[in-house]
């Protein structure tokens, strides 16, 4: 069974927005610029998630979610001995895409900043949702894993979309090339576990050596 959750605005991190916009700090932007972008962008978001919780098992590099099976070494490693996993699709809606495309034509600086706000919003929505699942199912979650991470093929999108019926439930659609529309959306799998996961520093597993933010995240 697929469930739907609608959220009001999750917690906002300006630091993350600046990172997505390619800036170091708010002083890199003219005074009031980020505020103006936020004022325009925040009202257009609509935060929705649809999800199912599956019984699952991992055998070698095959992850079996009963409704669908996936071959991926990296996902298998991530899920480990999990017996259940939540498969979810989250979106902040299509309004932000219209706004980005409006400013893409008349003011790319705003488009970049508004796209950064969108990226921060969808990540924040996923975090909020995962915290909810932890509470509801009285569990901890492995770090969420999305199609395209490591060796997990993007074609898994097809399975996730068909199992969750994302179009009907949250209006999320799949483009032929496996990209999603609305673009500020995430699909992911997170295994249930008993052990608290702590905060793995993403920088430690990232291979990019020349990143402006190396060590920050």
């Amino acid at each position: 069974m697929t469930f739907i959750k609608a959220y009001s605005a999750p917690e906002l991190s300006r630091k993350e927005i600046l990172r997505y916009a390619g800036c170091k700090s708010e002083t890199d932007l003219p005074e009031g610029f980020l505020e103006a972008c936020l004022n325009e962008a925040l009202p257009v978001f609509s935060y929705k998630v649809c999800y199912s919780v599956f019984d699952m098992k991992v055998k070698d590099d095959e992850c079996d979610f009963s409704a669908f099976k996936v071959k991926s070494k990296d996902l298998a490693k991530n899920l480990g001995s999990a017996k259940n996993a939540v498969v979810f699709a989250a979106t902040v809606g299509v309004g932000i895409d219209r706004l980005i495309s409006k400013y893409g034509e008349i003011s790319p600086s705003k488009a970049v900043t508004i796209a950064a706000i969108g990226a921060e919003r969808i990540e924040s929505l996923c975090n909020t949702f995962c915290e909810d699942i932890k509470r509801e199912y009285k569990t901890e979650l492995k770090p969420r894993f999305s199609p395209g991470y490591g060796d997990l093929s993007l074609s898994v999108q097809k399975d996730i979309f068909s199992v969750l019926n994302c179009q009907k439930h949250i209006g999320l659609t799949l483009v032929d090339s496996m990209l999603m529309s609305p673009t500020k959306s995430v699909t992911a799998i997170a295994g249930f576990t008993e052990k608290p996961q702590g905060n793995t520093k993403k920088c430690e597993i990232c291979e990019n050596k020349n990143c402006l933010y190396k060590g920050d995240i």
Partner: protein
Amino acid sequence: MNFCDFLRDNIVCFDGGTGTLLQEKGLAPGELPELWNITHADIITGIHKAYFDAGSNVVCTNTFGANTLKFSDGQLDKIINAAIENAKSAAKESKADGEKFIALDIGPSGKLLKPLGDLDFEDAVSVYAKTVKLGVKYGADLILIETMNDSYETKAALLAAKENSDLPVIVSNAYGEDGKLLTGAEPQAMVALLEGMGVTALGANCSAGPGQLSPIIEEILNIASVPVILKPNAGLPKSVGGKTVYDVTPDDFASEISALIKKGVRIAGGCCGTTPEYIKALKKEIEKLSPVHIEKKSITMVSSYAKTVKFSSEPILIGERINPTGKKRFKEALKANDINYILREGIGQKEKGAHILDVNVGLPEIDEVLTLKNAVSALQAVVDLPLQIDTSNISAMESALRIYNGKALINSVNGKKESTASVFPLVKKYGGAVVALTLDESGIPETASGRVKIAKKILAEAEKYGIDKKDIIFDTLALTVSADKDAAKVTLEAAKIIKEELGCNTSLGISNVSFGLPSREAVNSLFFALALENGLTAAIINPYSAEMMKTYYTYRALKGLDENFEEYIAAAENFGDVKGQVLQDGKDVSNLKEAVIKGLSGESGGYTKELIKTMSPLDIVNKEIIPALNKVGEDFEAKRVYLPQLLMSAEAAKAAFEVIKTAVADTQSHKTKETFIIATVKGDIHDIGKNIVKLLLENYGFNVVDLGKDVLPQVIVEKTIELHAPFVGLSALMTTTVEAMEETIRLLRKSAPWCKIVVGGAVLTKDYAEKIGADKYAKDAMEAVRFAQSEKGRKCKNII
């Protein structure tokens, strides 16, 4: 009895949900339920029969996702054949009294339409057309288009139904908890769109329980002139101990719907979570009620993908700026196929307070059919104002109306036989309100009574096509007062009579009146005020004109339309002189170079206007703009400034170039510039990166031809050959779309070996770019510019 006859005098009971029932019977997650029509015909027939037994007058076939995006043509034929047979068997087997009808059920395609997604509007129409034709072939009694959460896709499905059948069509949308469709349409906008296209009934289903849907249904009941359908869920699904439970009981469900039937709902049933038990309870309530008379509403409205504009006592401003007449710079933009110029005009007019945008791209040298369609597509993707399709080219009018996402205002029809015969069929088919000019074969009558007579003739003609008078808006033609001293008086008198005696709305193109006179703004604004006082409902004006906007806000304030003068006071802040506005950013910069470096577009444009009086355009570019851009570019490369700042400077430079272009519109030619073709490759719908590169390249003097996003390799190749373009830039975001990039490069090497190919995008690396055969991997926009400049410099020095 046919369905429409039954609907006329009865409350119609539909069936309930099937998804939940099928899951109970073993449908696995991800399994396609439509196949069960063939593999589990007995179960499907059993569910339909249970609904007929419970009292449903209509059951919907199990074909929600039956379309050619999911099934082959052959499979689809079999599925729809079986689905309708299952419903027919159920109708035969059920012993229940009452009329029994079968609705061909059509749900969303699962795709989002372009430009937000990748399904083309016409392709969507074709997909739905196949399903509709099969429904007709196998004997459905009516069509239900349901759970649609996008207005554009709804239009595609309805158009397919109308073009391929004579069956009654009911359209039901799924509204979110914010009361809108996922892509933004409010219920009123859907009523405008659907009624315009001649739907049999409309309403809402799915999303939530009857209680949560009631405000939406009441809003629809208030303005709809056709029967209203309601098919809510059994409340919201909740997970209780791993099981799914809906929170509204059958009795509560029935009584909540009953309350809405008393308010006018004519067709009721259930959606997710409802079962024959719910329908039985509902039918019991329906039997106690008699249908409420459906009142014909005479509300004139037009809509965009999101919003509705109603013609009432509130004056409506139609922005006139998207029209090349008398605008050299606009003509240049049209010839160069610069749709972004039109977008800027659209967005700008909205910001100045326009309610509707007139769109006229008529120019002898261009393909008007294609350009109008492109302009409408581009505008409706980013501006939520309704559009006025303004053309005398009937093919252009039709192609624009067809792809328009809403109910358009159409400009125009007139009293000539030829005009009504060509325009009215389009209004009838695609919906729309149409501006009718009071002239005919014998010209424009000199008297008000003559113009009113033509208005009556047009109304009589519209009636023959089944077009209601609420959708005719008369333009009594503002003529040049300097040529005839009574011209304005006659126009106003005719408008007044039409409003008062015929009960129709009116619209006027204001500025004609002052042609040939000095201080035209003074004449225009007073004429506008007089027209409003004579009952004018809409005016085509320039929203950038301070005088016109002053008149508008003042009129509303004086007529009691502006509570506490709030809007007047807010607008009055901008009534001041224009100079103040140009330097609105108020930052302390003292010249153009600084303005560009600091990224202040307003100042940059302002200083350029001053400079161009004393300095040659070439000097402004070479001595002011380019050095400023170089400074910012170097700072960006040295990580002293970041991307948003780089872009702000680029935008400021663009504002300066815009001033220069306007000043030299008739001498400037693109031929002296190097052409750089740019596109996001097939399959990819991201275009920020591409837009950034484009902006920077334009600033550095390249003629950038932007082919957009999700572009087929062949299209890029053909354009490169056609323009013999020396540069092609390709952008891709994901690994899956990099393949399309590789394919594009392969074809370019074969057919356009002269061109240099620059690639960029999130997943690309230098190595990968080399592997797929690109000439250059640009890690950011500046690097793309530097490469193009160095290549250009090698070929031919001193082009800029």
